[in-house]
């Protein structure tokens, strides 16, 4: 089994990460370490629902209508908010359509999988980046280690 894990690491490590260009340099670190927000304060349904959700611009503006309005990134934010649009965040993790895979945050949160397992050290990161490389091997290995089902139909249907 260990041999296998190494094999898949060898395969995956060689894949370069695609860095997404985010429209605003959102510092997760500031919000978490300084403002002491929790992940689910913004990603509100990450612990219960399928999708974690990304907060809408109005949520940002709840604070940033007043807070730190002079910073350049916040100005960008305000400009977008004024245009009545949403922030065109780039997706960081996602499955290809052809992968036919269903990932649900809820069960993972319920079974106390830390966010960092899949999302990496976001609390110290600036903007959302794929800090952890995901592929089927990642899921399977974790599932096996945690005695979760590795039945294909757990995710593929």
């Amino acid at each position, binding site marked *: 089994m260990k041999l296998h894990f190494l094999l898949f690491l060898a395969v995956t490590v060689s894949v370069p990460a695609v860095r997404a260009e985010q429209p605003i340099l959102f510092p997760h670190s500031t919000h978490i370490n300084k403002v002491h927000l929790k992940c689910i304060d913004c990603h509100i349904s990450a612990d219960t629902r399928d999708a974690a959700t990304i907060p809408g611009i109005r949520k940002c503006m709840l604070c940033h209508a007043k807070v730190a309005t002079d910073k350049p990134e916040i100005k960008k934010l305000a400009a977008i908010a004024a245009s009545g649009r949403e922030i065109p965040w780039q997706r960081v993790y996602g499955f290809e359509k052809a992968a036919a895979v269903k990932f649900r945050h809820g069960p993972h949160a319920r079974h106390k999988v830390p966010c960092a397992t899949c999302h990496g050290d976001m609390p110290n990161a600036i903007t959302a980046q794929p800090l952890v490389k995901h592929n089927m*091997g990642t899921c399977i290995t974790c599932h096996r280690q945690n005695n979760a089902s590795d039945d294909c139909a757990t995710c593929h249907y």
Partner: protein
Amino acid sequence: MAEHPELLPYGIIREDLFRPLSRAGSKWWFTVTVCFLLVLAGLAAWGVQLRDGLGVTGLNRPVFWGLYIVDFVFWIGISHAGTLISAILRLTDAAWRKPVTRAAEAITLFALMIGGLFPIIHLGRAWFFYWLIPYPNARLMWPNFRSPLVWDLVAILTYVTGSAIYLYLPLIPDMAQLGAHNKPWRRKLYTTLSLGWTGSDREWHALEMAMKLNAVIILAIAISVHTVVAWDFSMSIAPTWHSTMFGPYFVVGAIFSGIGALIIVMATLRRTLHLENYLIKRHFDNMSKLMLTMSLLWFYFTMSEHITIWYGNEPKEMGVFGQRTRGDYAFWFWTMVVVNFVIPVTLLGIKKLRSITTAVIASFGVLIGMWLERYLIVVPTLVTPRLASATSVYSPSWVELMITVATFAAMILLYLLFARLFPIIAVWEYKPHSPEEED
């Protein structure tokens, strides 16, 4: 003199057999061009299929297998011409085999290369065919080794490897001799491929040893390969496919069609390469007898297969049986019986009628008949599924036909190229025998 080509002066033999390598007529170029264009057209058709999806074929529910699988089984069958026949002849040390073996072995390799493509062509997502191969991957998944298709993959890979080696080994001494060719690229090709053959007795000894061993092994592989192909069908529970007899039935059919192909190839080589002194009537006579035997065997199996279905009178099987013998496929079924049995037995069984021409005619018939046999195994069963409501009809689309035609063209093309690059008859095997050693 012509009765014993091996008694010809060695120098003449060499010259005769090496001559085709250096001379190409306009006919050769014409045929190569036509075949090449046909192969291109086939590739284009495949391109269309890859782009649009398998919907461009005539397949439907429930006829999920069609021409591609028919072609697959047919070509794998043809591949038995070679190695199997050559191995049998080599092991029995039939002296007349010498001009036949390499021609036969080449058929095997090319037919396998072509036949092996079909399972990929017929895939819904052909670009993922490598998922059948067990290799460590990020998905931590392995193929299902219980599937006959994985057996097929292993069997065909083994057979291709074995056949290639089996064809290659006796080519080494010939290529060593051709190393002195006047064209530089050819010289390089031949010397590289001959691996520095010196002609020492140690090499000869090892070669003969390897050939003998390989002949035994390849025989075992060849039989297993077509058995496994047969099991693709008989492992399923579709009516009339689920037959314990399919293994030997397919092997017999394969050898049968293989001989047909070989006779045609031999006759063509004889005519076009002017090898009348080497491929003599005795060869055709012997091959005809072999084919006659296989025809009788084939008939025995076919009858045995069908009479058990008829007698058993199991409704679902009778549906297929009825389709074949008096339904939509009756014409083709009876055509098959005629060309596979009536014609060969008449033409080759009656000594007076047996000649090179009749052998070729019978062979063409057998090729058609054996192709039909595969069609009649694959399609009528699928159009007559167990639940009547799922019944359907099947007629191949232009894409399937084009690809089928292209594979025949590819076979001819490969063969023409091979015959231009390598002596089609093993020259060194015409070693001067002293009369007392002659059997």
